């Protein structure tokens, strides 16, 4: 194609930084307790004392600290050399206790969540909402009828005390403090997060939603989410994350452990829009028993660096997993995301659909693993990765590893990298649609398989985000 005459269509200009609007509003810091910089045994003991935890938890924290100190920084994937571990305050607790009435939440925190639409989200047909501000959960509520059925939705700190038996049975059994440096860190300093327990046979018909907000400068957020969906029960859980922009780096090293029992179903949706100075090193895993199903819907937009690979372990026969992910890497961002699926039982199936967009020097890296163990016969899996590059300052890499341990499998994989074709833009423009709108339309169409999986308010947010990102990219 003749590029010279195609100037009108190929022209690109760049915007410096997207106005993240309400996400960037910073509240005055007003904390009850702020741990000194860096990590020592003394800090760990203080955290545990503050939380009034049982002894086994303190022991686990101290063991994790030991492992954390012994393990080297990972050398693959993202460049973490700029991450100053000593400079990150591991535990920050806002100056308020947890409340179950929105009116009791302090005004400044309330305003933040109001801007983010959290209580509004609750009004709009959600079964329950939790909001975490810095390290602690500040607000939690759930519909009464679900409570009556025995569904538990509370913050992790309370759960350690009120549901100690369940927590002790599952807590950090799937993600252990030995897995990697940041899971060890998490084990040592974890704080807040959600605990959900859905008893056998209960179908939670509306999504439960949690929102994490990191406000303090240079702080770390290490929330732990533990969800157990018992036999034949079902749940949709939505997690949203954001942080305002500071010049100091923030670290997020949360852990999500999901247990899906026989015949149960869980959908776990995440929209992550951390500020662009955040190191998002999160670990998420799900164990699926016989005929159970996990569905991941994952959107990664924010952060400076992300390393995030939600993992499904299909442990029971007939278990299945579906992963739908979108990653949008703009200027200054390195987003290393993907998914891991382990087929550890016969007749298990998995589907992976991943899309990424990179622009303005952003680097999107898809890293995936699909493993079929020798005993897992009659496994079916398809993996699809599609990457869209909006300019040649950006980078896009795809590395899907497939490991197959027996012959009775049916595995298909496809990956594509490219940019928006000039012919497609021409086609849309020939119908009267402007170039800018044509491009936005194509990008929205590209992410449509993801947006259609999201609850409406998130889908709208995602579309706004894309419009914001694309504004000014067209000359």
């Amino acid at each position, binding site marked *: *194609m*003749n590029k*010279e*005459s*195609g100037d*009108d*269509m*190929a022209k690109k200009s760049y915007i410096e930084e997207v106005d993240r609007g309400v996400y960037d509003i910073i509240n005055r810091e007003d904390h009850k307790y702020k741990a000194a910089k860096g990590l020592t045994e003394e800090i760990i003991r203080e955290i545990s004392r503050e939380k009034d935890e049982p002894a086994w938890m303190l022991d686990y924290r101290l063991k994790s600290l030991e492992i954390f100190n012994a393990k080297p920084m990972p050398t693959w994937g993202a460049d973490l050399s700029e991450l100053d571990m000593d400079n990150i305050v591991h535990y920050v607790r806002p100056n308020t206790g947890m409340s179950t009435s929105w009116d009791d939440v302090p005004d400044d925190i309330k305003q933040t969540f109001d801007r983010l639409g959290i209580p509004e989200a609750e009004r709009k047909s959600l079964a329950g909402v939790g909001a975490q501000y810095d390290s602690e959960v500040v607000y939690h509520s759930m519909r009464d009828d679900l409570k009556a059925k025995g569904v538990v939705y509370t913050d992790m700190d309370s759960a350690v005390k009120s549901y100690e038996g369940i927590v002790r049975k599952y807590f950090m059994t799937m993600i252990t403090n030995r897995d990697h440096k940041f899971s060890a860190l998490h084990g040592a300093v974890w704080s807040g997060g959600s605990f959900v327990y859905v008893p056998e046979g209960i179908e939670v018909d509306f999504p439960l939603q949690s929102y994490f907000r990191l406000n303090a400068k240079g702080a770390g957020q290490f929330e732990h989410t533990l969800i157990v969906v018992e036999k034949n029960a079902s749940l949709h859980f939505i997690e949203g994350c954001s942080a305002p922009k500071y010049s100091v780096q923030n670290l997020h090293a949360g852990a999500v452990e999901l247990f899906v029992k026989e015949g149960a179903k869980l959908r776990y949706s995440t929209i992550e829009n951390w500020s662009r100075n955040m190191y998002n090193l999160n670990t998420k895993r799900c164990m699926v028993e016989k005929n159970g199903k996990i569905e991941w819907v994952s959107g990664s937009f924010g952060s400076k660096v992300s390393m995030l690979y939600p993992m499904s372990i299909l442990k029971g026969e007939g278990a299945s997993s579906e992963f739908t992910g979108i990653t949008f890497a703009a200027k200054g961002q390195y987003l290393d995301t993907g998914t891991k699926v382990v087929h550890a039982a016969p007749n298990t199936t998995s589907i992976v659909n991943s899309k990424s967009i990179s622009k303005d020097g952003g680097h999107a890296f898809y890293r995936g693993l699909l493993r079929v163990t020798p005993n897992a016969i009659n496994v079916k899996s398809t993996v699809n990765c599609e990457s869209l590059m909006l300019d040649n300052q950006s980078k896009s890499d795809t590395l899907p590893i497939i490991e197959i341990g027996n012959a009775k499998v049916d595995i298909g994989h496809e990956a594509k990298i490219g940019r928006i*074709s*000039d*012919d*497609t833009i*021409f*086609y*849309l*423009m*020939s*119908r*009267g*649609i*402007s*170039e800018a*709108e*044509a491009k936005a*339309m*194509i990008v*929205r*169409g*590209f*992410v*449509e*398989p993801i947006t259609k999986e999201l609850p409406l308010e998130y889908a709208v947010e995602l579309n706004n985000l894309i419009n914001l990102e694309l504004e000014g990219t067209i000359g």
Partner: protein
Amino acid sequence: MTSDIIKIRDLKSSVAGQQILKGINLDIKAGEIHVIMGPNGAGKSTLANVLMGHPAHTVDAGEVTFMSKDLLAMKVDERAKTGLFLSFQYPEEVPGVTVENFLRTAKKEVAGIMPMALSFKKELQSNMEMLNMDSKYLERYLNQGFSGGEKKKNEILQMAVLKPKLAILDETDSGLDIDAIRVVYESVQKLSSADNAILIITHYNKILSYITPDYVHVLVDGRIVRSGDVSLAEEIESKGYEQREW
């Protein structure tokens, strides 16, 4: 009293330095149906793409006046808004964008206002009925996984919705079975009126059984070498393009 839709004067174009159109002259007035025929590689599709403003083509010389405006100075979407329509030989697939959403957006752009949802849907449905299209196509992604015939019908559906002043149909018959060709051209005939015009590009003479052109042109090697009425098409049918008496 007829009014000019398009006036093409000495239009020359090239792709990657190679000249394709070598001086096209053509006038089309409201209410007319024109057919351009010619052998493969003559420049028929190029003419369509140059008029629509495809970025791969460079205009080297000539003038085109469309609805009293300088067509060549306009961007692609402006040409569409002014009333030019091209039914693509190979319509692009646009994943994630539904036919309905696309048509509504295009209609909004071309008409200048958002169409009323209910009446728009009604109009769509009656057009789809005419084209023998299932209304479930509205929910499908634009052209994705469509058969050749479905794509072409979808093009004519867009034409019906956008109501252009000049519709250029580029090899709309290629890849279609006889039934589909009949449906498509009968629809095109219905869409033709006293204040619009249609330019059909084809190498398939049989279309004359479904639509009656006012003028037939023969395009060979980047030039219109002969123009006439329907009888010219019949002559080509019997003699072929290889009879190069022109």
